């Protein structure tokens, strides 16, 4: 052909990369790896071969993977099932899995470690059983628990943590936990205290996979703006100006259920078909009043449970990308993803890979106390709103405490009813009235982080 005349100059490393790529999958290597391909980075100076700059991936790194490397998988759902399989079939043998949920029928279109007979059983346990009985030598340890049930001593034992969560709050908590494990000597980060966090997320035909090296790369909170806050319909729309079928459903769920108490004192359970049916019927009635069409049982369930559509394929892709990163980091044979991959297969297949940047004043990983700029005449309510509405903070129900006259004082706390009632009047008081001064440190606790976040008050007037 004509094009054969053209001499194509290829960079040497591209050819070598291909050769490495094709050869890299072999378990027993049999190949003399050139030392320069080992991208050993200091943070991997953990028990194992990473201390040696010239280590040989064909022998020691694979050995590490098979015999020593302990991985934690968070979530045993759509991503979790895929992750467990991927890791087990890549040679990992010491795996823990945490999941607080039980199996539902609607999981079975993608969470393939489960069968109809398993409905109702804990996901972590069934998943572990399946893998352990299928892959000889693989030991998956299940934990039917919330991630918050464990403390730092649990998380410290892992070399790598990979998340397949469906909650941003949980992700941020995990992120905060790993940041809290970092140790600094004379202001310098000790690389051996870093536990890499691989995080995957999917929604319909979209997904993303990212690599977080706590203290080194962008963390989950550094890029919080990538997760736009969940939109809830305004109450006045729901209460008096519905336009969409969703508004009618929310009316039944938020206003009518607490008022009518159709099943006594029981709170609305999205998994109870009777509850959904009740909400569906009330929503239909309301819709009829306003000539709104489109209220269906499926929509009702979707709104009440905040259902996100899901298929097997997207979960398979994202989990595979995450597992590839776990493999790369564990064997130290390739440069890990740096550091964010986006995937979308609605129209063809689209991927975009970029380096998310650390935020200088990130509330989770920057170690600097967060600045709070308010006039002394601002009310505590204003501070609370800022903490929840600011795109970089997005706290859920922050509890604010401070030290006044040498004593710890709770300014406002929502999660305990008695304390909420006692501290509620503080919301209407100004910062000055509460006795706070310029430069005062406020400690804020929230579900989005395992450690309190320190804020520094800066009076603007």
């Amino acid at each position: 052909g004509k094009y054969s005349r053209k001499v194509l100059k290829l960079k040497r490393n591209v050819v070598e990369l291909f050769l490495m790529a094709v050869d890299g999958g072999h378990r027993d290597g049999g190949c003399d790896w050139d030392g320069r391909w080992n991208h050993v980075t200091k943070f991997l100076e953990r028990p194992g071969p990473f201390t040696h700059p010239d280590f040989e991936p064909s022998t020691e790194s694979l050995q590490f993977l098979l015999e020593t490397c302990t991985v934690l998988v968070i979530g045993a759902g759509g991503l979790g099932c895929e992750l467990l399989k991927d890791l087990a079939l890549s040679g990992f043998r010491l795996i823990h899995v945490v999941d607080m949920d039980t199996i539902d029928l609607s999981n079975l279109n993608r969470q393939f470690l489960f069968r109809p007979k398993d409905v109702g059983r804990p996901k972590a346990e069934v998943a572990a059983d399946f893998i352990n009985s299928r892959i000889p030598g693989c030991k998956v340890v299940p934990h039917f628990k919330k991630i918050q049930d464990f403390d730092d001593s649990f998380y410290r034992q892992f070399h790598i943590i990979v998340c397949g969560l469906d909650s941003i709050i949980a992700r941020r908590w995990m992120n905060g936990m790993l940041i809290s494990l970092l140790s600094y000597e004379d202001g310098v980060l000790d690389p051996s205290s870093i536990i890499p966090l691989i995080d995957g997320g999917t929604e319909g035909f979209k997904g993303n996979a990212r690599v977080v090296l706590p203290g080194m790369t962008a963390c989950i909170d550094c890029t919080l703006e990538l997760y736009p806050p969940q939109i809830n319909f305004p109450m006045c729309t729901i209460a008096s100006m519905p336009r969409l079928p969703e508004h009618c459903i929310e009316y039944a769920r938020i206003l009518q259920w607490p008022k009518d108490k159709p099943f006594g004192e029981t709170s609305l359970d999205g998994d109870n078909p009777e509850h959904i049916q009740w909400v569906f019927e009330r929503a239909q009635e309301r819709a009829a009043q306003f000539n709104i069409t489109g209220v269906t049982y499926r929509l009702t369930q979707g709104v009440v449970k905040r259902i996100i559509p899901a298929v097997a394929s997207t979960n398979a892709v994202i989990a595979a990308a995450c597992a590839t990163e776990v493999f790369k980091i564990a064997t130290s044979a390739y440069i890990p993803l740096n550091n964010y991959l986006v995937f979308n297969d609605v129209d063809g297949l689209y991927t975009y890979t970029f380096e998310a940047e650390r935020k200088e004043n990130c509330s989770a990983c920057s170690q600097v106390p967060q600045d709070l700029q308010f006039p002394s005449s601002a009310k505590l309510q204003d501070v609370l709103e800022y903490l929840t509405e600011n795109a970089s903070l997005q706290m859920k129900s922050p509890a604010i405490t401070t030290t006044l006259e040498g004593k710890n004082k709770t300014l406002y706390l929502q999660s305990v009813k008695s304390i909420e009632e006692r501290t509620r009047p503080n919301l209407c008081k100004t910062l000055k009235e509460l006795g706070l001064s310029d430069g005062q440190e406020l400690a804020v606790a929230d579900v989005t982080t395992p450690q309190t976040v320190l804020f520094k008050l800066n009076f603007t007037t």
Partner: protein
Amino acid sequence: MAATKASKEQKYDRQLRLWGDHGQESLESAHVCLINATATGTEILKNLVLPGIGAFTIVDGHTVSGEDVGNNLNLIFWVLMVDPLDFNRAQAATELLQELNSDVSGNFVEESPNKLLDNNPEFFNRFTIVIGVQLPESTCLRLDSVLWSASVPFLVCKSYGLIGYMRLVVQEHSVIESHPDNALEDLRLNQPFAELKNHIQSYDLDSMDKKDHSHTPWIIIVAKHLERWLSEHNLQPPKNYKEKEAFRQFIREGIRKKENGVPEDEENFEEAIKNVNTALNPTKIPSTVEDLFNSEECNDVTSQTPSFWVMLRAVKEFALNEGNGSLPVRGTIPDMIADSQKFINLQNVYREKAMQDAAAVSKHVECLLQSIGKYIANRRCRCLGKNSSFLRVVRCRSLAEEYSVDTVNKDEITSSMDNPDSEMVFYLMLRSVDRFYQQHSRYPGKAKVYTALSLINVRLCIHPLCYDDCRYGAAEPHTVAAFLGGSAAQEAIKIISHQFVPFNNTFIYNAMSQTSATLQL
């Protein structure tokens, strides 16, 4: 019976929200053929069995010996007993994949595809789609020829180490429901249809009371201000940034003021200002649809014409007649601040117009069908009107065209090679490795790569240091197989359901850099 239907709805709930009951029906009527139950093959099929395809057939003549089982972890996963006796890969894979979903029926044929083509060339014609995994070049080309003539879509997949490859071969694939991510609204504000004009006319912003004024939909607000603007600007709508800014300011001046001159809090006006760009989008037929209108199939409708083109022609006829140069009105509007009645009334104006237009399109369909003596199930026409802006046709070249020296896509290859990071390099490598295999019945060691590359007549300047002697073969690491498994399965679902748009026509995934590229070869 009712119990099974209800539990199926529950089981598939999360995916029904993506492709609907009709999409699920098309899946359940599909029969997928997988050639070669390798790690990649079983991963692809798993992601088709789980969502409930009707049936699958695995064609695989490979017998796996005890030695191989140890290396092929994927088979260990899918095989209950790890018994080092010879077993047929097709049968083992079928049993285990079947077990994932009792709604699916699985079959296997212990035969190589070449043998099947020799003895029964029409074997593959029965399938909705054929997926070929880790197939040598010659087998791919044979299948390409047979499936192309039979109009059966063919998806070729390969994993080589950390590289994944997919190639879609389909002559013509039409999509009505493409579900685009970011579709422009169809508001018709630059050319309001009669009913919309009348509805806008029924509003008199100045005489409204405070409550009504601040709960008027932004569409009305923009329309009213646009009317005034047009009369003052020689019927020219705001076009550039400066004019649009002026228009926004003009709307802002429409906000009622309190006695002290401070503007009221009118969120609907703020919404109008924010949505000026959206509102001023001209109504026009997208170029993708124009191209379809101009194609031969659309203009030359006969009894052989596939249904899609008959329907497309009907849309074109509508555009030329009732539509006055525009497509049928879509009928949806975004939510906006307004009281219920105003919003619902406005929404109904668009909805009723959409129904009218859809009925007109249906009439054109009927006329066309009558003239050519054909029948189309009504269901297919129903979503035509509201999807008319999103109609897509994907045409992929055959493998024969890609591989032939006369029709190889040189331009795409050479222009991609200008970019040193392009995944095109891996495409060339895969082709050369395949060609080497073709001639030597094994994969090349490192030292032979240069030879392999010469087989496809690509001369390279390579640093001599790359010639270490090292054995390697077509390794299939699980995570790459799994990535391809998800990707390929979804493309197959797109082909089967005719929803969402398939890729065209080559996809390469690089697990080392976590990048990918779609090439048209």
